[in-house]
C-alpha cells in the first residue's frame, strides 16, 4: 500500500489524519480504524508526516458574524473550509449579547446552507402544470408522506423548467405590472422576511410601496409580536424593548410570561437563570406548561391557557389593595390610572383563581414579590401575543410595569423577546402595512410626502392588508399577484387548508427562497436566493442591537443576492432601483429612519450598536424612557382590559386545548433545521405532548400514534408522555409538515394586532390504530 492509497482508504472510511509536531493524530469516530490500517499508518509514519506538513493550519479561515436563528442575535465566529466552501464548525465570540455562549442551533445548525437541495437556477412553471395547485402528492392529500420528509423534489421539480435569470425576472416583472395595470395596485401584495437583513427588508418594502404602488406588505412579525407592538405603541409610544435582556442581572425580580425561554431564546435564558442563581434576582414564571424555566423559578404559576388578563388584573388588584404601587411614578409619568383601577377592582385573587386555575394565595404571593421589588423586569413571548386577546395581554403587562415604576431605570423594563434574528429590523425597516421605515404612519400626509420625495413616486395613502388578511383577500380573488421573499405561509400561517386554497387562487406568485418550500409548489416563478451565510447585511436583535452579518461562503451555482433580485424586479417594473452595495442601501434607510441615524456598517464593528445611538462612538442607549415616553403627552398610558375567553373553547366533541410553538432544536417550518444533520439527528420528528393521565384515559402508551383533530383538519403523530403539561392540554410544534400543527389552528385574529390565535383552539385526540 502506498501513502496515497492509504490516505484514500482512510478518507473513504471517514478517518481523518492530522500532523501535530512529530505526531500523527487520528480521528476515528466510526471505529473504522482496523488493526491493518493502524499497522499501515505505522509503516508509513515518516511519509505521512511529510505529506501532512502544514495542512491543519491552512485548512480553515474564520469569519466573525452573527447567528441566523433567533432574536437573541449571538455573535459567532464561523470556521470555514474555503476549498470546500463549507463551514467546519462555529464558536461563540465575545459580545455584550452572548459573552461567547451559543445554543444548539447556533453551534450546530449551520450546515443547511451547504445542502445539496439548495436552489441554484431560476425555475418557471411548465405550461402543462396549470391550472395551479399543490404539486406533491402529499400536499394534495393523495398519500401520507413518510415521516421525516420535507418537500419531495422528485415530485415537484418536474413541473418546472429551468430558465435564465433574464427570462425569469422579465416574466416576474411583466406579470406583476400586468396585474397592477389591469386590476390596480391593491391586487398586489408582498411578504418580506424577518430572516433577511435590514437592507433587504428596506428594499422589499420600497419595491412594494413604490413599484407595486400598495402598502400590502407584511411579514411574520404579524404572527409573532404584532399584538405586543400594537399595545406598546398605544401605551408607551414605541414598539421595541425598553431595556436589554442582559440587564436582568440588576433586577430584583424577573417575570417570565408566556415564554418558553430555554427553548426559544436559549442564550437569553442563560442570563436569566444566572441572575436567579446568583441570589440577586427572584424569578416568577407564568406559563400553562411547566417549562424548564419553571424549574428555576421562585414562583411558578401554571395558569390555564389564555387567562393572562385575569391573572395580571388580579396582580394589579393586589398591588393597589396593599399599597405596593409607585404613586409618584403614576402621578408624574402616566395617565389613565383611574380607569385601570376601576377595571382591576373586579379581579380579586379569588375571582382570578377560578379563571386561571391557580391558588389565590399563590397569586397574592407572586404579586407581592413583584410589587416589593425595587427593580423588576418583564419578559414575554408568544404565549402572551398569539391570542385573540394578545393586545390585551400585553396591555396588562405594560400597566403592571407602569404602576410599579419599572420602566426607564437599570434593572427594570419591558422586554418582549423577539423571535426571528431580524424581526425587529424588518419591522424597523417598514415591512409592515401601516408604517414606513421607523414606524412612520402611511396615513400621515406629512410623513407620506417625505417618503414620496425620497422615493420619487406617489404613494398609496391607504394602510395595507396584514398577513392573514392578504391570504383572505387572495381566497376572495381581490389579491391576484404576490411576491414572497423567504416566507413559507403554507406551514407558518394558521389554518393551512385555507392558505392552500388561497395560494392556488393567485394569478401569479413569485417565490424567492433557498429551498423548494411548500409555498413554492404554488409558484409561477421560483428565484434561487442566497442564504444568510452568503451575503452581508445588518440584523437587529431583540435588544435593538444592530449587528453586521458577514459573508462567510460563496453562493451555490446561479443563486443571487436577495437585495439584487428585489432591485432587478423593481427596475424591470419601470422603477429603477440601483445600489452598489448593502452599505449604500443602509445609508438610504438610516437617512429615513431617525432611530438608526448615525449608524453605518463601518461603525457597527464586530459587536454592533444599540439603536438609538446619538453618539456613534458609544454603544447606543440601553435603557429607554428614563424621563418621558414618546407619546403625544409624554406620559405612559394605562389601557385597562377585561378578561375574555379564547375564541374556540373545548367542548364535548373537541375536549382538549391545543397549544403550538417551537422546539429548542428546530426553527419554524423546518426548511433550515431539518436540513441540518445534527439538529435532525437530535429531534427527527414531531410528537404531541400530553399529560400522563390523559394518555392513560385514552389507553395510549408513550410513543404510540394518535390522531389530533380540530374543526379545520387532522394530523397523526406519536404521543409523548409529559408531566410538564396540564390535564386537558396538548402541545404540538409547528415545524413538521408531516404533522403540520397549523392544519389544526384557528385563523381568528386579535382585533388590534391582527395576530392569529396560534396558542388556543379546541381539538380531539384519539388513538390512531
Amino acid at each position, binding site marked *: 500500500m502506498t501513502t496515497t492509497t492509504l490516505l484514500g482508504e482512510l478518507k473513504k472510511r471517514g478517518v481523518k489524519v492530522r500532523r501535530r509536531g512529530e505526531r500523527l493524530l*487520528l480521528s476515528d469516530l466510526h471505529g473504522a480504524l482496523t488493526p491493518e490500517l493502524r499497522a499501515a499508518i505505522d509503516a508509513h509514519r515518516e511519509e505521512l508526516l511529510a505529506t501532512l506538513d502544514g495542512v491543519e493550519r491552512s485548512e480553515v479561515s474564520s469569519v466573525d458574524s452573527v447567528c441566523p436563528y433567533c432574536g437573541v442575535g449571538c455573535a459567532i465566529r464561523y470556521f470555514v473550509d474555503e476549498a470546500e466552501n463549507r463551514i467546519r464548525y462555529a464558536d461563540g465570540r465575545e459580545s455584550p449579547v452572548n459573552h461567547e455562549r451559543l445554543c444548539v442551533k447556533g453551534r450546530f445548525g449551520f450546515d443547511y446552507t451547504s445542502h445539496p437541495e439548495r436552489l441554484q437556477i431560476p425555475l418557471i412553471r411548465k405550461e402543462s402544470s396549470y391550472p395551479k395547485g399543490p404539486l406533491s402528492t402529499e400536499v394534495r392529500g393523495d398519500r401520507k408522506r413518510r415521516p*421525516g420528509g420535507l418537500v419531495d423534489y422528485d415530485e415537484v421539480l418536474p413541473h418546472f423548467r429551468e430558465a435564465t435569470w433574464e427570462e425569469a425576472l422579465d416574466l416576474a416583472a411583466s406579470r406583476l405590472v400586468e396585474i397592477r395595470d389591469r386590476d390596480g395596485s391593491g391586487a398586489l401584495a408582498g411578504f418580506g422576511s424577518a430572516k433577511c437583513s435590514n437592507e433587504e427588508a428596506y428594499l422589499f418594502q420600497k419595491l412594494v410601496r413604490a413599484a407595486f404602488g400598495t402598502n400590502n406588505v407584511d411579514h411574520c412579525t404579524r404572527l409573532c409580536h404584532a399584538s405586543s407592538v400594537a399595545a406598546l405603541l398605544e401605551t408607551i409610544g414605541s414598539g421595541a424593548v425598553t431595556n436589554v435582556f442582559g440587564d436582568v442581572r440588576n433586577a430584583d425580580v424577573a417575570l417570565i410570561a408566556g415564554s418558553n425561554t430555554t427553548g426559544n431564546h436559549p442564550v437569553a435564558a442563560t442570563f436569566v437563570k444566572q441572575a436567579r442563581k446568583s441570589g440577586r434576582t427572584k424569578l416568577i414564571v407564568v406559563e400553562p406548561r411547566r417549562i424548564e424555566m419553571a424549574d428555576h423559578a421562585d414562583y411558578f404559576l401554571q395558569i390555564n391557557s389564555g387567562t393572562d388578563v385575569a391573572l395580571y388584573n388580579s396582580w394589579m388588584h393586589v398591588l393597589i389593595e396593599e399599597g405596593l404601587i409607585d404613586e409618584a411614578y403614576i402621578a408624574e409619568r402616566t395617565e389613565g390610572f383611574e380607569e385601570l383601577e376601576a377595571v382591576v377592582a373586579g379581579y380579586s385573587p379569588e375571582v382570578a383563581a377560578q379563571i386561571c386555575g391557580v391558588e389565590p394565595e399563590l397569586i397574592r404571593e407572586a404579586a407581592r414579590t413583584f410589587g416589593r421589588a425595587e427593580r423588576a423586569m418583564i419578559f414575554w413571548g408568544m404565549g402572551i401575543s398569539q391570542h385573540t386577546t394578545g393586545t390585551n395581554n400585553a396591555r396588562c403587562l405594560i400597566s403592571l410595569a407602569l404602576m410599579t415604576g419599572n420602566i426607564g431605570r437599570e434593572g427594570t423594563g419591558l422586554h418582549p423577546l423577539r423571535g426571528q434574528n431580524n424581526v425587529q429590523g424588518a419591522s424597523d425597516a417598514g415591512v409592515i402595512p401601516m408604517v414606513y421605515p421607523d414606524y412612520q404612519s402611511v396615513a400621515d400626509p406629512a410623513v407620506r410626502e417625505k417618503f414620496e420625495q425620497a422615493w420619487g413616486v406617489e404613494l398609496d395613502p391607504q394602510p395595507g392588508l396584514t398577513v392573514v388578511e392578504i391570504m383572505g383577500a387572495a381566497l376572495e380573488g381581490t389579491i391576484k399577484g404576490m411576491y414572497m421573499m423567504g416566507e413559507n405561509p403554507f406551514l407558518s400561517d394558521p389554518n393551512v387548508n385555507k392558505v392552500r386554497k388561497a395560494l392556488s387562487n393567485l394569478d401569479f406568485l413569485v417565490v424567492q427562497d433557498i429551498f423548494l418550500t411548500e409555498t413554492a409548489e404554488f409558484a409561477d416563478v421560483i428565484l434561487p436566493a442566497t442564504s444568510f451565510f452568503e451575503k452581508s447585511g445588518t440584523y437587529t436583535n431583540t435588544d435593538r442591537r444592530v449587528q453586521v452579518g458577514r459573508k462567510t461562503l460563496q453562493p451555490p451555482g446561479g443563486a443571487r443576492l436577495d437585495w439584487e433580485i428585489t432591485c432587478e424586479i423593481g427596475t424591470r417594473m419601470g422603477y429603477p432601483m440601483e445600489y452598489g452595495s448593502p452599505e449604500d442601501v443602509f445609508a438610504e434607510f438610516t437617512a429615513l429612519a431617525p432611530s438608526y441615524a448615525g449608524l453605518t456598517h463601518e461603525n457597527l464593528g464586530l459587536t454592533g450598536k444599540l439603536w438609538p445611538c446619538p453618539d456613534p462612538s458609544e454603544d447606543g442607549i440601553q435603557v429607554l424612557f428614563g424621563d418621558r415616553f414618546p407619546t403625544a403627552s409624554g406620559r405612559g398610558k394605562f389601557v385597562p382590559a377585561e378578561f375574555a375567553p379564547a375564541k374556540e373553547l373545548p367542548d364535548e366533541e373537541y375536549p382538549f386545548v391545543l397549544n403550538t410553538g417551537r422546539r429548542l432544536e428546530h426553527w419554524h417550518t423546518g426548511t433550515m433545521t431539518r436540513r441540518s444533520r445534527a439538529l435532525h439527528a437530535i429531534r427527527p420528528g414531531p410528537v404531541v405532548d400530553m399529560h400522563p393521565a390523559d394518555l392513560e384515559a385514552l389507553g395510549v402508551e408513550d410513543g404510540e400514534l394518535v390522531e389530533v383533530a380540530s374543526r379545520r383538519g387532522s394530523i397523526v403523530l406519536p404521543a409523548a408522555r409529559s408531566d410538564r403539561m396540564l390535564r386537558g392540554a396538548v402541545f404540538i410544534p409547528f415545524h413538521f409538515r408531516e404533522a403540520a400543527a397549523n392544519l389544526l389552528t384557528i385563523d381568528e385574529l386579535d382585533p388590534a394586532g391582527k395576530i392569529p390565535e396560534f396558542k388556543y383552539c379546541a381539538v380531539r385526540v384519539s388513538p390512531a390504530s
Partner: protein
Amino acid sequence: MARQGRDEQMIGLTIDGRPVRVLPGATIWEAARTLGIDLPVLCHDPRLEPVGVCRLCLVEVGEPKLTAACVRGAEEGMEVRTSSERLEVCRRGLVELLLSDYPVDVSRLPKTGSDALVELAGELGADWPARRRSGETGEAPGSRTEPAGGIPAGDGRALDHTSKVIFVDHQACILCDRCIRGCDDLQVNEVIGRTGKGYRTRIAFDLDVPMGESTCVSCGECEKVCPTGALSLRGWETLPEDAAAPGVEGWEVL
C-alpha cells in the same frame, strides 16, 4: 477581565520586575494579563470562577511554596515571578503526569486544532510516555470500555458516543471541572457533575447516564471550555443524512 485603573484603592505589585496596579479582588493571573503575560492554564477560563486545580499557573511570590496565580489574589507590594527553572520543571512535570494516560487518538485536534494540553506539552518540551512516542495507540478506541469494578488503567476509561453533537472521551479528561462550571454556572443547565472517588473519579451527566440520554440540551458550552480531547465536536459530517434525504427511518447513530 482586566481590572486595571487609577483608583486610590488600587493594589500595587510587581510581576517579573514590572510594576502593575489592579483593583482589589483581582488575581495574580489577571494582573499578569494586564501586562500581556499569559500564564499557562488548563483549568481556568476568564469567563469562569477560578478553582486552581491544574496548578499550571504556578508562580513564585517569595514564599516557600509555589502558588496558583488563577486563585491567589494580588497583594500590595507582592513580587511575583512567572518564570524560573523551578517553575518550568514543575509545570513540565504536571503536564507529563497528565500525558501519562492521555490517549493518542484523541479527536479534538483534527476538529478544532486547539487541544490546550497537547499545545502546552509542546511549549514546555514535555516528554510523552514511551508507549505514546512509539505511536502505539493501545486498544482500538471503539473497544475501550471501563472494566467493571476494577481500576481503570491505560486506555481503560470509556468513550461515550451517545450525544449527537459531542464526543466524550473520559480517558482524555483531566478533571479540571471547566465543563462542569460551563454547564452549571454559564449556561445554568446543571447537567454535568463528578462521580466516583480517587482514580475512578470522572465527569458524569445527570445521575451518571450516557450524555445522549441525559437532559443535556447540546449547547456545546462544555466542548467549548474543555481544554483537552475529553469533550470534542463530532462534526456534522459524522452524522447520518438529514430529513431531506430519502429513507431517514432506520438509520443508526453510533
